[in-house]
């Protein structure tokens, strides 16, 4: 709403849209860090069943006896859960703000694709994450008719291989990686801009390059194991 008044006194830095953006940037960077670790773990599949499964088991025994079994994993899960709540809350709040900041659309303006990619792409990623967790963590679903049973679903390596031998499963994950690439390319750059690290033209150009490189690195790293399975390089 346009006003004719100055904003009420006593407002703080925390009550601004920029503070919401800072929340989005910080939580986004938590995800980037997590994705790099997750990607590293996935690449263990190239070394075979033994390496992959012992890595998965080691994640649970990490920090013992200081931490209980699975302790580190639960700490990571809580941090990720808080991050996704913060990230999505900030995103949807700002999305709705942007909607009410311009109620009458232009007749002749092409909409900026990037912001639509971030919002709808982000929503798609959110749905994908739910599916992904059901698939590999919470329920452990094998979509492969030939490879069923507890000896598949209880064995991380066998479940991964069984899953990516199915073409539609591969397609879902490729689609998610395309969405992730677009999201990270803008998101990593955007986080740097929001944190105020790009206050010169040179730093600004560098931030764009970093966004592209990080997005490409993560997405290529994530695509290697499923594609290797699909093309029969590992089984």
């Amino acid at each position, binding site marked *: 709403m*346009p*006003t004719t008044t100055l904003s009420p006194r006593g407002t703080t830095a*925390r009550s601004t*849209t*920029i*503070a*919401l953006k800072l929340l989005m940037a910080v939580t986004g960077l938590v995800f980037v860090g997590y994705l790099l670790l997750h990607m590293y773990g996935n690449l263990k599949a190239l070394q075979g069943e033994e390496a992959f499964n012992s890595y998965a088991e080691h994640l649970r025994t990490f920090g013992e006896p200081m931490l209980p079994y699975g302790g580190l994993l639960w700490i990571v899960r809580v941090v990720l859960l808080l991050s996704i709540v913060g990230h999505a809350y900030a995103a949807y709040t700002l999305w709705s703000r*942007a909607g009410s900041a311009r109620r009458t659309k232009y007749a002749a303006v092409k909409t900026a694709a990037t912001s639509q990619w971030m919002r709808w792409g982000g929503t798609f990623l959110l749905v994908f994450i739910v599916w992904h967790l059901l698939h590999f963590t919470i329920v452990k679903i094998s979509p492969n008719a030939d490879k069923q049973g507890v000896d598949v679903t209880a064995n991380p390596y066998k479940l991964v291989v069984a899953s990516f031998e199915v073409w539609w499963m591969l397609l879902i994950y490729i689609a998610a990686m395309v969405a992730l690439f677009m999201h990270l390319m803008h998101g990593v750059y955007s986080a740097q801009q*929001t944190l105020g690290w790009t206050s010169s033209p040179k730093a600004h150009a560098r931030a764009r390059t970093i966004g592209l490189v990080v997005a490409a690195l993560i997405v290529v790293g994530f695509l290697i194991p499923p594609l290797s399975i699909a093309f029969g390089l590992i089984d």
Partner: protein
Amino acid sequence: MNLTLKIWRQTGPNDKGGLVTYQVSDISPDMSFLEMLDVLNEELNAKGDEPIAFDSDCREGICGMCGLMISGHAHGPERTTTCQLHMRSFKDGETITVEPWRAEAFPIVRDLVVDRGAFDRIIQSGGYISANTGAAPDAHAAPVPKPNADRAFMAAECIGCGACVAACPNASGMLFMGAKITHLGELPQGQPERDARVVSMVNQHDHEGFGGCTNIGACSQACPKGIPQDVISQLNKDLRTALKHGH
């Protein structure tokens, strides 16, 4: 040149408004866009119709008064103000859509005229340096390093036309605010009020109903003065610093 114009007409803030099609002929390519609208208004006057209301003042690209959305581009296809845009930038026979800036924070007054008082209130809330009365200090009493002075001047080029808000998919005023924050933040005189300024200005910006920044960069591309996006990073940095200082 002969042109078809689709122009937004709206009799007042509460009117629904709509695009109306006009034909103009024998337009010189050397005319400015506003002169072309003047020609159309003369014709409308002669016919006894209401002329199209639009803002303009200096017509030399420095006051920031004019501003139209021309076929989806703020200030038209060139990087300049609407008054400095010439008809040679268009093709003979072209159809041009002319709309006002669209943002809830810039309510439409009439036709293509919007009220940009929201920008004034953002400046009032902190976009200034408080000065004590008395004799002016010597100009060289507060040295300013050349790179800082250059950046302050670059940011101070902002004429407050509102093209950044008009072009932004979120109708955000961050480029405008970033320019002022950078302008004053680069100078020694701007330091005492630096934290309070950014907190106050951003709160006023949000209060006016502008959207948040998604770092798309449409603002910078539309800016007739070419204010770069890094001023928004400066704005974010200043707010983060204020946050750290407990504001």
